[in-house]
């Protein structure tokens, strides 16, 4: 019997109908690539044996165009994104679920490639996809493929990650270069294709986080600067903690290629999305120890202290987040209104 992956074959409405076509789609693509003992039990709901402790749970809907981009695809991104959200809670990720909304007409080969990449990302991270769901919608009702992943994880004893613990004098650390993901995606967008070697930084950060927390359990806060970039993430944290923050522009790592693309398009790397970076806020006297743990991981090779937490301030005070510029002036680092729009000249 030949498989469903014939050359030129595409997803049809029947693949979402619940009949034989659905079963074959799940068996020949998803189950094949995601194979693990829990999923393989084939129940509607996955049964997990969890150790006692505090559980974190996080969910993330992934929509991205193009589906495949330099350095990753929507599948690996959906795995990394949710693992990172769980890890930023200080937890060890245990399992993922994945729900697929597929647009009629998506080539089965594309779906197969993305599922393979997703399975590989989950295996590499050691976090299995234990349950899932598939829906097919009519052409035009979705953009190729949407993936929602949910993750659960266990918080180890003694770890307490919360923005309220951010205190004046703490160090603000960044695990590596800013803007790689956003610029890699932009470089492949319709109408803006430009030649570049920049790849998305999409990566799972939970192992690095585990080592960081082992070295410095007093880490106050972890966050991944995804949508909205560094500026949105730190503004959010400053608001939540009721503190001011001062960054040093010269200390923020940005790849020359990313800086160049941003100059050209009139974008600022501090507003651009990252998918494999984290911000860590910890007591200043532990900053060096945490940095050296981060630098021992490939995902944290370029880790640096980029700023310091300032005094307490009432939430809502404008200009909580400030930056000493390259030439020694000061400026506010604000949230961005809407998306960054490239300038005229």
């Amino acid at each position: 019997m030949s498989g469903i992956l014939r050359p030129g074959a595409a997803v049809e409405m029947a693949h979402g109908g619940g009949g034989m076509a659905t079963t074959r789609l799940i068996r020949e693509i998803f189950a094949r690539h995601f194979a693990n003992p829990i999923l393989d039990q084939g129940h509607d709901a996955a049964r997990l044996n969890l150790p006692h402790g505090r559980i974190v749970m996080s969910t993330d809907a992934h929509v991205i165009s193009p589906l495949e981009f330099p350095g990753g695809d929507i599948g690996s991104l959906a795995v990394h994104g949710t693992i990172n959200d769980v890890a930023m809670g200080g937890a060890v990720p245990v399992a993922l679920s994945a729900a697929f909304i597929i647009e009629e007409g998506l080539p089965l080969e594309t779906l197969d490639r993305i599922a393979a990449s997703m399975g590989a990302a989950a295996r590499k991270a050691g976090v299995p996809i234990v349950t899932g769901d598939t829906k097919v919608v009519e052409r035009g009702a979705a953009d190729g493929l949407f993936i929602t992943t949910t993750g659960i994880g266990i918080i180890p004893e003694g770890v307490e990650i919360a923005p309220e613990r951010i205190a004046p004098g703490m160090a603000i650390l960044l695990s590596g270069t800013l803007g790689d993901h956003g610029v890699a995606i932009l470089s492949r967008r319709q109408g803006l294709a430009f030649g570049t070697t920049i790849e998305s930084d999409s990566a799972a950060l939970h192992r690095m986080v585990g080592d960081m927390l082992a070295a410095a359990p007093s880490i106050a806060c972890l966050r991944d600067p995804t949508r909205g970039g560094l500026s949105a993430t730190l503004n959010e944290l400053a608001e939540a903690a009721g503190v001011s923050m001062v960054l040093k522009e010269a200390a923020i790592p940005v790849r020359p290629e990313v800086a160049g693309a941003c100059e050209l398009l009139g974008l600022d790397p501090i507003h651009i999305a990252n998918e494999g970076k984290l911000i860590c806020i910890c007591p200043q006297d532990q900053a060096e120890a945490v940095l050296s743990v981060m630098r021992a991981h490939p995902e944290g090779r370029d880790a640096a202290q980029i700023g310091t937490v300032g005094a307490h301030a009432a939430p809502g005070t404008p200009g909580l987040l400030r930056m000493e510029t390259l030439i020694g002036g000061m400026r506010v680092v604000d949230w961005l209104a809407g998306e960054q729009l490239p300038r005229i000249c």
Partner: protein
Amino acid sequence: MGGGRMKYVSEFRDPALAQSLATAIAREVDPARSYAFMEFCGGHTHAIFRYGVQDLVPSNVRFVHGPGCPVCVLPMRRLDDALELAERHGVILATYGDMMRVPGSGRRSMLTARGAGADIRMVYSPLDALALARDNPDRQVVFMGIGFETTTPATGMAILTARAQGLTNFSVFCNHVLTPPAMEHVLAAPGIALDGFLGPSHVSTVIGAAAYRPLVAHYGRPLVIAGFEPLDVLQSVLMLIRQVNEGRCEVENQYSRVVTDAGNTKAQGVIEKVFALRDTFEWRGLGSVPDSARAIRPELADFDAEARFAISEKQSREVKSCECPAILRGVKSPKDCKLFGKACTPETPMGACMVSSEGSCAAYYTYRRAETMAEMEAAQ
């Protein structure tokens, strides 16, 4: 150089050099007087704010922000016309990203129009708009031509290319404007106390340093063409201070690594070939300015959206209490506007100066909001 990569910007942001320029400026300013310099160009406004340049100069050196922001000076009427092209005439409207959020009449914008079904595409170059026309032979594609002399040649090239390729579904809604007449308008206005100009960077690469000499001679204000990097700005400020202190009044070219005296004659040739001067053009803030804008030449009318589509007469009214007009003339600052930071923010802009990445309200909001809001409260 021994394996070194060429860095094309970092040397113009060097903190030690910035400090030494700041020291020189502090040494040479006359504390007994003040200096008001207009940076004509919105790109300079943003460089000044983004790098905190004002923190490096003494408080008696003041930057006055000029009208050099193409999105900001476009009157609402022209934006309403563009929206009409997309909504009533059903064209694919191709535009630079800067235009997307600018409010038109009734708080509508290209973004809201797109949300309501109009086919508006963001492009990065007029050549992208040409590609849209080639890919959609059964649709009319209109490129929203906007900008000073910097972007005019590219629009002109797109029109010449369209003609050479025999494209019949491509046209330009031309809003290109000229720098020297706007500068003259600012200088001729009564009550403006300016001690000199930071001249535009990119515009000057096209029109050349010589283009400013008649103005500088006639109005007796020095002008230094300045690059966009923070060190360029600091050095140009120092050059202006020296001119003022020595009683000189010249066109000097700090940005000599790019700008020549004659400018880019090839680009000027394209402009001449494709565009004529409009007798007059409405600017937001400045009003009607004679000989200040380009129109597409009659012999290229096939590529002129204003000739191809019947655009209706309309009354477009600016938001009354918005101070954009006075801010664009340099007579008010964003903190003098009641709407700033309250009714008018980048999320809910009332005027174009809050939207454009070159607008001064956006610069104050993005980089100095805390200080500006505090000053506004203190003034009340």
